[in-house]
């Protein structure tokens, strides 16, 4: 009995350590009109498991030839950008719309503000590098792309503020 409890204890310990050491994806939705809030936390490695269950079709996405042509450029460009200091790459300003793409640390921050909504998206460079690595033989390997977020932590990936609802996606 002690041996059995010991094995169960070690197994549970391993599960807890694995869950705590992995990155978590947290989706938060606040529907203002109806007044409800939803928070869905999920370990990033679950995405990998779900993709494996989904079979080969879920694990890869066909890419248009134009994208395949330019994806190999992505990695060296991101490598080069990683060396640069923080800067604003693109800024668009027109009545009722402001768009900004900034390099901040090892991420790109995309911000779109118009009259109805504010959208902030953070794209870790690691994810772009993974996209370049995940592209091969005419398709994108989703598993490798999902794995890129496993090394990212404490980052707000998406933040959408609208009059009727807010949506945020975090990696913890």
């Amino acid at each position, binding site marked *: 009995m002690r041996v059995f409890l010991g094995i169960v204890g070690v197994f549970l310990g391993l599960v807890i350590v694995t869950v705590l050491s992995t990155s978590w994806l947290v989706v938060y939705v606040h529907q203002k009109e109806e007044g409800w809030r939803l928070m869905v936390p999920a370990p990033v490695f679950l995405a990998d498991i779900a993709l494996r269950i989904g079979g080969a079709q879920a694990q890869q996405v066909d890419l248009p030839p134009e994208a395949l*042509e*330019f994806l*190999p*450029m992505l990695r*060296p*460009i991101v*490598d*080069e*950008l990683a*060396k*640069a*200091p*923080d*800067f*604003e*790459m*693109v*800024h*668009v*300003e*027109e*009545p009722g719309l402001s768009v900004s793409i900034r390099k901040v640390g090892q991420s790109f921050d995309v911000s779109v503000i118009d009259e109805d909504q504010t959208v902030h998206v953070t794209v870790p460079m690691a994810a772009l590098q993974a996209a370049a690595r995940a592209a091969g033989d005419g398709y994108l390997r989703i598993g490798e792309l999902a794995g890129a977020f496993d090394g990212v932590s404490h980052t707000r990936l998406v933040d959408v503020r609208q009059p009727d609802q807010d949506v945020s996606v975090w990696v913890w």
Partner: protein
Amino acid sequence: MTGRFLCTAALAACLSLGAPLWAQTASWLHVQVTDGGEKASTVNVNLPLSVAKVALGMAPKQFTDKAVEKLNEHDVSIADIRKLWAEIKNAGNAEFVTVQEADETVRVAREGDWVRIRVDKTGEKSEHVKVDIPIGVVDALLSGDGESFNLLAAINELEGNTGDIVNVEDGDETVRVWIGSQGD
């Protein structure tokens, strides 16, 4: 423990000192497009030239050869341009091309180390184009073999220059392309 802490602190100090230095010494490509019309808008693009170099170095051949294709459509080859450029360089400071029409003037001239192109269009929709290219950049651009431009060499050459390269004023719209430091 103290040694590791000191090493980390020294590394952090070097990196924090290095970033502003990088910003000051590296060349940046800046593009600004403004539209002063009804829907006034401004677009600013800033990019380290080193990134442009990497992109051009990796660009698919059909992408870089598009300019050559355009020239070939007009029966102009890169070999022709190289010959013409050699003549122009030997001629020293001079105005090589002057086209004067009722509502349009085109001038291409060499002034010192610069090739200056000016297009002035008057009339209902006026347009002013100013292109200033350092001679070294044209040399580098034409330094490739066969029927291709050496864009990478041209970007390398641009790194040593600062200032405006292209200015276009087209009615309410202006386009400015220049090389400078990060904050320019």
